[in-house]
């Protein structure tokens, strides 16, 4: 039971790092970016390539994945995404699905369709024995890194000048623009940073779940759930939602009740049902506040 909670916590933290960029960009520009998972996948493959082909350590791969995906994100934002902000949601959806398909096929072409998993660094192998529970060292590392990141994000958002500009822009971008805040630049920066975080999360996660070309589609729904449940106006909302989702997902895989003689995995049902219910009763998210836009 404790192990499930622990694994779920690690998984949820990871999900948060993966999804937080999407949550902020969605709240800021009201832009539906279904290609967010592609950035996470890119980060994962950066780690795979660096570690398997060049024998570098995971500790080098993580920052590299962040920088590379952030750069790609910035490039795409300036060249392509910027043309889509004033288009309809349908066009945004089509465009980003198109990008996702292209990314998936490209990765398939260069890396093959088989799932890739990277080795955990030697220093983080094995478990900590703590009385009755044994905790996986790598998951402790993941939790620690993600917790640090979350605290840094929260502080950056609430204490720095950039953070307060960003919050102002999310709350009401028109008024923020009127006050002389360069919303376009803030958005570009945030988008790049969010993509970088996704890449970082992908690299960090590549040692826990395997990475394959289907990754963006598989995780798209998880990202959407995080946003649906957590809302887009804060980062604490998506954070709590990620933890919940992580624990629920891991628990759902362990807990398989028998119904009418058939062993049934309920994980998927529970999660999707919760998402649909939350969307129906609290369209602004479980932890979000209603924003009049």
């Amino acid at each position, binding site marked *: 039971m404790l192990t499930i909670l622990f694994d779920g916590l690690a998984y949820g933290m990871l999900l948060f790092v993966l999804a937080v960029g999407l949550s902020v960009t969605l709240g800021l520009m009201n832009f539906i970016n279904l290609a967010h998972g592609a950035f996470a996948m890119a980060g994962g493959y950066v780690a795979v390539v660096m570690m398997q082909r060049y024998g570098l350590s995971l500790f080098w791969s993580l920052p590299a994945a962040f920088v590379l995906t952030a750069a790609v994100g910035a490039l795409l934002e300036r060249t392509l995404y910027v043309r889509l902000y004033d288009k309809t949601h*349908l066009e945004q*959806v*089509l465009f980003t699905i*198109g*990008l996702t398909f*292209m990314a998936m096929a490209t990765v*398939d072409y260069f890396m093959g369709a088989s799932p890739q998993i990277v080795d955990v660094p030697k220093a983080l192998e094995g478990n900590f024995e703590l009385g009755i529970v044994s905790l996986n060292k790598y998951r402790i590392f993941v939790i620690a890194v993600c917790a640090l990141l979350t605290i840094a994000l929260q502080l950056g958002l609430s204490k720095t000048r950039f953070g307060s500009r960003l919050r102002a822009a999310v709350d009401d971008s028109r008024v923020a623009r009127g006050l002389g805040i360069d919303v376009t630049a803030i958005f570009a920066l945030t988008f790049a940073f969010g993509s970088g975080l996704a890449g970082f999360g992908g690299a960090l996660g590549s040692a826990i779940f395997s990475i394959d070309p289907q990754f963006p589609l598989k995780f798209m729904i998880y990202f959407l759930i995080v946003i649906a449940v957590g809302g887009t106006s804060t980062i604490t909302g998506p954070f709590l939602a990620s933890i919940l989702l992580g624990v629920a997902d891991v628990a759902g895989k362990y807990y398989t009740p028998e119904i009418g003689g058939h062993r049934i995995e309920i994980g998927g049902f529970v999660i*999707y049902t919760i998402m649909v219910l939350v969307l129906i009763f609290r369209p602004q998210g479980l932890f979000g506040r209603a924003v009049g836009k």
Partner: protein
Amino acid sequence: MTDATATDSRSGTDRAMIYFAERARWRGPEVALWIGAFALAFLFPSRALLFNEVAILALFALSLDLVLGYAGIVSLGHGAFFGLGAYAAGLLAKAGAGAAPLSDPTLGLLFAALVCAAVGYVTSFLVLRGSDLTRLMVTLGVALIFQEIANRMAWLTGGADGLQGVAPANILGMFEFDLYGRNAYLYSLTVLMVLFVFARKIVHSPFGISLRAIKGNSLRAGAIGIPVNRRLNGAYTLGAAYAGVAGALLAQTTAFVSLDVLDFHRSADVMLIVVFGGVGTLYGAVVGAAAFKAMYDVLAAATPQYWEFWLGLVLVLLVLFVRGGVMGLLGAFYARLQRVGGRP
């Protein structure tokens, strides 16, 4: 000149009626298209299986066009109804073990349409809440739930192995599903045409026109007395039933249902077809389906594994450069022809 004065003497309502009647009029190219589609079965009998797929895809796209193009509901999970219809018809045909009355194809279509309409009606209440983004997620969520159910209920659906032993009886008790797919194509095409004519009628009916008003501005549509939510429920239900029939056609003509019918790529493909053909044009669905299948045939033959890349590229280019799809381009071209022709 006399025409103009005669029009002016009529009341506003009359003029509106004439306008709508003119819009709903059948035009030459439309009739030619349908005759041509039937002729294909006899001109290229060896490609009938491919044509059959196109007809089914066109019907599926037509169903999304009703939801997306007329009701303005962005759905990422329309494949749920396609799959549900396929399983409904497949299970019914299996239960009948290839003999009428249960395995009768027409009954299968009706059954699939009813099941999907019922589910569509219930889920329409979930879908109609909230913004585009919420709708997107709810439709996707519902589709995923369906996929999970079909996957887990392997004792009923066959799970990952697919539903075996779907044996529909002869069409109308007379025509057998032959190996070359000619009867299957004629059957699917007939269903497509009947439902297309019906959809065309609906679109030009007061119901369809009120849908267009809602899509234009739902607040104002409500203000002039259109029951917005009821109309959207109706449109979504209709779209679901149409998608169900398309799924049922696939199940009957291929005598097999696999989990693939509920896959996400179905929902994405059909959206591409509708947007490529032209949203809210009905014919866009048919043209888009034919173009999509042709493109698939060429590209997938060249690079089978990386077909997705070209699909993505088309989507991206479409959004960036082409507005209104093929039908939009055709319309602009036609308008230009008329201008050029009318000038001298």
